[in-house]
């Protein structure tokens, strides 16, 4: 990789300079060290006195900046009856603050040529702005403002409730994959488990949010000590950091009681459910309980996923889609969670083909992984593909910021994506056999079988 980074020569000296004359303890900056991000880049870790973590990666390849704010709150931090609140705030946060009228956030962002959006999942919620380099100050100002000053009243809650309900209709109520996936998570974890309810929330819960619930959620989780700001791109730390001190330095930390890990699932036997849907063919959504993202076994499961569904020559794709011609659509994935996720498959059968035929093949392929060594050439092929995707993910400033934010929030290491790349490279044939035998057991599996409506 070419060196495209200008390192801050002496961060400690910079910290001393920036703290000169700063009286508010929350606004004082501490330099916490440098983390390599591959061979050519590195991340400087800073922290404000109020607990806000700042991860800064200078990349002067293009005159743009990505500004991410990752909050350590996702759907597993919710309660039964109030599911979807984390995602609901992903919407609410674009509304008015006590300093900014409704609509002004987006107007200012567009005037700056910025792109902004947000996402929520089980462990996190993040917000991002991608801006021309000269506009980075706007992101600092707007993100700091909405971290503390969001207006959460009846009018704001009502205006977003219908939008979110419509998002749910699009993603779940009218979408066979979304509906089956929601059912699958409920089946695998139980509907009352924090991983078992949908991140978007149950429709009844969305319809029932009260202002008090929303206010409490915001006050608890939207605070500097529960967030990490990631800045990647064409920035000068000597310009950026004083802006962050000025905008976030007055914010007070929240009292956050550490949230225990969700209870381990007690599944011992295969679980099955059936759905009827207006669809032309049968579907299967199935999943095994998997490993936490930070574990080496998760890397091995990623390899198995690639081996099964990755390229056109992947095992399941070749057999089910090309040779037997019984599956029209095949997807696989391993969820990247702090406390264990799912290794899942989605299959849409060809018309008039019974899903059981595909399930039989999957069982055979599980047995093959456990009893036969994966040929070294096949393993190398899979690793080459994962390397290609890794490079693609860090091509843009926003891509790098996403990887850093995800790594920091889920594993505690902002450069975890490089750790993962190394783990993927050292997966052996024995690792594949061991992990397949450990995780791909019938007793860890849940299956949702979708059948066309009207079929006998």
């Amino acid at each position, binding site marked *: 990789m070419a060196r495209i980074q200008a390192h801050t020569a002496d961060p400690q000296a910079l910290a001393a300079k920036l703290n000169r004359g700063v009286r508010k303890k929350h606004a004082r900056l501490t330099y916490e060290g440098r983390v390599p991000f591959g061979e050519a880049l590195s991340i400087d870790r800073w922290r404000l006195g109020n607990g806000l973590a700042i991860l800064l990666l200078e990349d002067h390849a293009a005159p*743009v900046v990505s500004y991410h704010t990752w909050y350590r709150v996702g759907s597993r931090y919710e309660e039964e009856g109030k599911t979807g609140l984390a995602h609901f705030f992903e919407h609410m946060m674009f509304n008015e603050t006590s300093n900014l009228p409704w609509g002004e956030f987006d107007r200012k962002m567009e005037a700056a040529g910025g792109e902004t959006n947000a996402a929520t999942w089980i462990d996190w919620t993040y917000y991002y702005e991608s801006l021309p380099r000269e506009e980075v100050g706007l992101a600092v100002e707007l993100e700091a403002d909405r971290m503390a000053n969001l207006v959460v009243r009846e009018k704001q809650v009502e205006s977003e409730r219908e939008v979110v309900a419509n998002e749910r209709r699009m993603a779940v109520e009218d979408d066979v994959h979304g509906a089956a996936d929601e059912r699958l998570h409920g089946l695998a974890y139980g509907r009352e488990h924090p991983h078992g309810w949908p991140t978007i929330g149950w429709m009844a819960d969305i319809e029932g949010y009260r202002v008090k619930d929303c206010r409490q959620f915001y006050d608890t989780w939207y605070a500097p000590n529960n967030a990490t700001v990631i800045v990647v791109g064409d920035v000068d730390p000597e310009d950026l950091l004083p802006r962050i001190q000025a905008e976030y330095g007055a914010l007070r930390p929240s009292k956050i009681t550490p949230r225990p890990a969700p209870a381990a699932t007690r599944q011992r036997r295969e679980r099955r459910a059936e759905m009827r849907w*207006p*669809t*032309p063919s049968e579907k299967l959504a199935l999943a095994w309980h998997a490993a936490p993202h930070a574990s080496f076994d998760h890397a091995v499961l990623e390899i198995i996923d690639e081996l099964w569904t990755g390229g056109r020559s992947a095992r399941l794709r070749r057999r089910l889609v090309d040779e037997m011609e019984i599956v029209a659509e095949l997807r696989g994935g391993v969820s990247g969670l702090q406390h264990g996720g799912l290794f899942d498959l989605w299959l849409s059968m060809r018309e008039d083909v019974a899903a059981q035929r595909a399930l039989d093949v999957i069982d055979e392929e599980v047995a093959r992984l456990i009893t036969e060594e994966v040929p070294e050439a096949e393993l190398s092929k899979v690793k*080459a593909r994962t390397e*290609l995707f890794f490079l693609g993910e860090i091509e843009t400033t926003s891509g790098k910021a996403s990887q850093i934010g995800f790594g920091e929030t889920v594993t505690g290491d902002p450069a975890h994506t490089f750790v993962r790349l190394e783990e993927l490279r050292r997966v052996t044939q024995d690792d594949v056999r061991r992990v397949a035998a450990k995780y791909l057991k019938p007793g860890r599996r849940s299956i949702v079988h979708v059948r066309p409506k009207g079929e006998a």
Partner: protein
Amino acid sequence: MSARVPGPRFHTAAGIPVFLEPSHALPLVDVEVVFRVGAITDPEGREGLTRLAARLARRGPKGMSAERFDETLDALGATLGMSVSTEWIRVHGSVIRRNLEPYLGLLGRILREPGMRAADFARLRRKTEAELVQLRDHDRPLAARAFRGQLFGSHPYGRPVSGTLETVSEMKLAEVKAHFASLAVSGNLIVGLAGDVTEETVRDAIEGALAGLPEAKASRARAPKPRAKRGRRVLLVDKPDRTQTQLFVGGLGLAMGDPDFWPLLVANTAFGGTFTSRLVHEVRSERGWSYGAGSKVGVDRQPDTFYLWTHPGAEQAVDCLALELELLDGWVQKGLTADEVRRSKQYLKKSHAFDLETAAKRLDPQIDTELFGLDPTWLAGYLRHVAGVSRASANDATRRRIPSDDLSITLLATADTRLVSALEGLPGVRQVDVVSHETV
């Protein structure tokens, strides 16, 4: 930003233009081979021919089975796809830099000597049929396909690029082979590489990969200019159990290089191109009727589609459509305010930095300039063109080109008499046709 110097450009011995956009930040290369014609070459009644031909070629060259070809690509750490549109075919992929030369070699072989085997063809045809059936699960693409068909009718732009169950099932290998052979000639191709490349290191590999391609001039196949149908016509695509409605409203868009392109880019950005635009503000922010909303002026060699897209809940579908018609009338008749035009121009100007962020993004306008035979300053002069748009020119172009009386309106929803009757009652609606989603 627009003054930046594009990467090197050269021609192969056979005259194929090659565009390079170097970036050495990562050991990664994106490769594109673009054909200057696409599905408009499908004869009437043979819809899907070009796409089948391209996908069959993708199954590997002579002397290498489809399975072996895919394994080899995967082992190189590479992807390779074939996309077919009305006016072009794009062979595109990415590869880890160290494997670029063998990758280009394989790419060249599927262009020069595609296997086009009978067994692969039979399998591909069945797969394509299965995909057409699966499309019924995907409401938005299904509605979009119906909208194009409704708008363009029998014009080549209205014919489905992926064909229909009837046309695909009747396709013969001989015609597919002959069709690909007629397309894969030197004059039809444009090559682009973006990423960790220099002219010195890749020139020989590109020359070698493309050597031996049949030399012939570019295809002169052209679709006629499409004509708008008169009046507001509604097509209701009936699908059971829908809780929300996929809604497309629109008419003809623009041809590449049309002088109204820049004024309409500014105008449409203000109307439905950003989160604060009129359409999104009224439909989503004010009323919460649709999670997604937007409008787009599509461009192609001939005028493509202009459309508004939303997906309101079933209960709000008619009200949402009525609002969209009202907004459209207001835009065309009264135009945009000076402030809307100013904000749109500022957004387009400042966000342009992201159009140039990666080498692949910088390559795209160069390829399009060549593909559509544009003046080299057309896309490269983006900032100058946007700056030159005035409120008057934006509003004049809107009045000239944005339809509000002659509209195709496509809804994918669960049909009932109440819905049909409400649609018939909308201003200017001439007819409402109802079709099953299984027939789209």
